């Protein structure tokens, strides 16, 4: 077996390749040219400075939701609630962005912070329930997603507007929009959020790898008994882990609310940012750097997919299938591992 690090890198790469190959087969079977399809995908994601800007813009929230799930996972928790945490973060950021009047150096950080705090609070509920009553966090976070969806919808309709489906736009002093970034990417919606996302990735790495906080969180995730024996407060660490994970997801909401859209709309369904974050975390092997790369891949796929119907005539449904296949192969990394080991043996 090769060194573990190399192997850890190989698995996601092979997963993506297998997903692309499977996608190609499906395109062939459906009578489309995979070469045209992937060319369109590539052009849609990296064809010009505008699409590159949009790809990066799309990646920022994926980085944050990916970090959220990866962080929880590293400490032994499954945060399926990133979706809900994104929504409450988004709402909180827009709310502060609309209602408060302050200079930018106060307003923007405040709005970003509000998103993080809202996400953190939303994750605090499953955290405390798990720590004190042993309720499984997967169940609670899934429920919290629905509560978040319907609550934010209701607040948009009844509190932030009077019966409208979209809030007002946030004040410019709370906006992450960057004229400079827009100008170099041919007026894409690229905003400063990507810097926040990258910074958050660095924070996650630092907490997990370098601090006593991360040491405790991981220890509790690995073995609660030994952690208690060592004098750690197990309950506190479970709650803390969920809250930090929720804050990352809440920030992803700020990306949308303060960066891309500048407002929030009533939606019938989920944004899927949180659910895709699960795949991003998986693909990134739950490491900060891995999540950043995986998020860029997801951003590129989603952005590039938009070009496939127009550029190669491939229906959007097929594009969704191809993306789903890639996620499938990532999720079944066990199979990939098996295949790699198998090839290694035969190569001998």
């Amino acid at each position, binding site marked *: 077996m090769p060194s573990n690090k190399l192997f850890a890198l190989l698995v996601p790469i092979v997963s993506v390749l297998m997903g692309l190959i499977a996608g190609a087969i499906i395109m062939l079977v459906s009578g489309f040219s995979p070469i045209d399809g992937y060319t369109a995908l590539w052009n849609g994601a990296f064809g010009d400075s505008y699409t590159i800007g949009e790809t990066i813009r799309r990646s920022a929230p994926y980085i944050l939701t990916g970090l959220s799930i990866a962080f929880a996972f590293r400490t032994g928790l499954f945060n399926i609630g990133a979706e809900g945490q994104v929504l409450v973060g988004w709402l909180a950021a827009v709310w502060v962005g609309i209602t408060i009047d302050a200079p930018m150096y106060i307003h923007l950080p405040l709005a970003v912070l509000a998103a993080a705090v809202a996400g953190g609070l939303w994750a605090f509920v499953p955290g405390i329930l798990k720590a004190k009553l042993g309720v499984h966090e997967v169940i609670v976070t899934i429920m919290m997603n629905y509560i978040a969806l319907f609550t934010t919808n209701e607040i948009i309709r009844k509190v932030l507007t009077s019966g409208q489906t979209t809030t007002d736009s946030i004040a410019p002093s709370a906006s992450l929009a960057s004229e400079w970034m827009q100008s170099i990417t041919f007026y894409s919606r690229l905003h400063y959020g990507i810097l926040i996302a990258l910074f958050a990735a660095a924070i996650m790495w630092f907490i997990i790898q370098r601090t006593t906080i991360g040491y405790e969180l991981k220890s509790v995730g690995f073995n609660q008994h030994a952690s208690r*024996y060592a004098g750690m407060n197990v309950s506190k660490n479970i709650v803390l882990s969920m809250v930090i994970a929720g804050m990352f997801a809440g920030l992803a909401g700020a990306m949308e609310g303060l960066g891309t859209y500048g407002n929030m709309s009533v939606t019938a369904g989920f944004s899927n940012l949180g659910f895709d974050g699960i795949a991003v975390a998986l693909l990134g092997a739950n490491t900060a750097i891995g999540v950043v790369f995986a998020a860029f891949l997801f951003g590129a796929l989603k952005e590039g997919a938009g070009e496939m119907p127009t550029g190669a005539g491939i229906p959007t449904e097929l594009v969704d299938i191809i993306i789903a296949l890639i996620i499938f192969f990532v999720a079944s990394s066990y199979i990939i591992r098996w295949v790699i080991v198998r090839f290694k043996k035969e190569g001998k």
Partner: protein
Amino acid sequence: MEYVIEMLNIRKEFPGIVANDNITIQLKPGEIHALLGENGAGKSTLMNVLFGLYQPEQGEIRVKGKKANITNPNIANDLGIGMVHQHFMLVEPFTVTQNIVLGNEPTKKTGVINVEKARKDIKEISDRYGLKVDPDAKISDISVGMQQRVEILKTLYRGADVLIFDEPTAVLTPQEINELMEIMRSLIKEGKSIILITHKLKEIMEVCDRCTVIRKGKGIGTVNVAQTNTNELASLMVGREVHFKTEKQQAEPKDTVLTIENLVVKDSRKVDLVKGLNLELRGGEIVGIAGVDGNGQSELIEAITGLRQAVSGRIKLKNKNITNKSPRKVTESGVGHIPQDRHRFGLVLDYSIGENIVLQTYYKKPYSKAKVLNYKAIYEKAESIIKEYDVRTPSVYTKARALSGGNQQKAIIGREVDRSPDLLIAAQPTRGLDVGAIEFIHKKLIEERDKGKAVLLISFELDEILNVSDRIAVMFDGKIVAEVTPEETTEQELGLLMAGSQVKEGDSNAIQ
């Protein structure tokens, strides 16, 4: 036919290590053949080769004189080789019968499982070998000893002639061990042959005919048990002279370190398990707590270390009240704890050895400053501990999971002793370890005593209690029922006391 199984000059390599190097073992029909070696000597690897889980690089296997190419466990099964694993492979919610037929179900013509036939067959085999297994009992309802018999039955049901027992006594009580020995004898009587993997010399002397010794992956040789003794076996296994009687000076007890007054502790089912216990422990002495498992020993330790709340009573450490303080407070006030279950409590198995070494001290200087870990200091500390405590590990960065039980335990002991606690609690510190490691650990405990520390030893092994303690407190039904010294007591007397029988007259300090 001279041998049923022959493994000749077996060599098995894994990347970086040779697990088996030129090992030969020959099993005669109708014998119990011990395979002896320290933890990590390569016993399990060798048996996995026989069982078809690994392919050897060199050497050959002969079954009943014929060369056999065992490439998977099914072939081993077909050749009549059965394995009783150390960790049982049973489905808990299933009955004994269901477990035994699993994967080999007798069916009626309709394809329905013929439960009646299976039950009858199992009953018959069970009776023939005196296994006394109830075919309808659920696995989750029966004792560990009984589960092991189900495993034995499983191999017999599949027609095994050669049974491999992988450290079968590690999980059993003394009573169950005796019963297992009986079962092994009756298996032999019925014409089976047995390979017994173990590092317990007593068992070998008791039931085995011959014994093959391996050390660090190399075959050392095969001896007739009747012509050897435990000392010779131990030195063959370890490669040097082993002292069973730990040498130590007379204890020089100093000031009182631990005082326990009227301690009452409930277990997780809210039943009183420690019922008004009193105990005093002084610096410079080792007090051994003897008792049958389940008489409140675990709850006592957990109460002292803060892992469990005491209902009433007081625990004082050097006149400081530590009753119901948090584990961290207790640790910081000078208590070291070698826990009974090293995997559950003692180690975070997915952490490196280095990270485990600072499990209670990571938040202190020099291991961290302003909440930022200083890995250089952590791994330096770990390096010095693994050197001093002879922890055999590829490096301090290796995960604790990858180490053998003995080395894991040495790492825990190194960590606990290194903090130089006033009170060191050692709960079953040598469970599952081989003689070399046991000797080392006993020496360390005595060294701590000689430094003036108080050592509380809890063990279910009377040998260990008698050997290491300066004073023995017998625990029965949640209380200390007698205090004796190892010089003036015997294994028999201790056994009686532990069983709760009345103390002989004139033993004044035995009355509680």
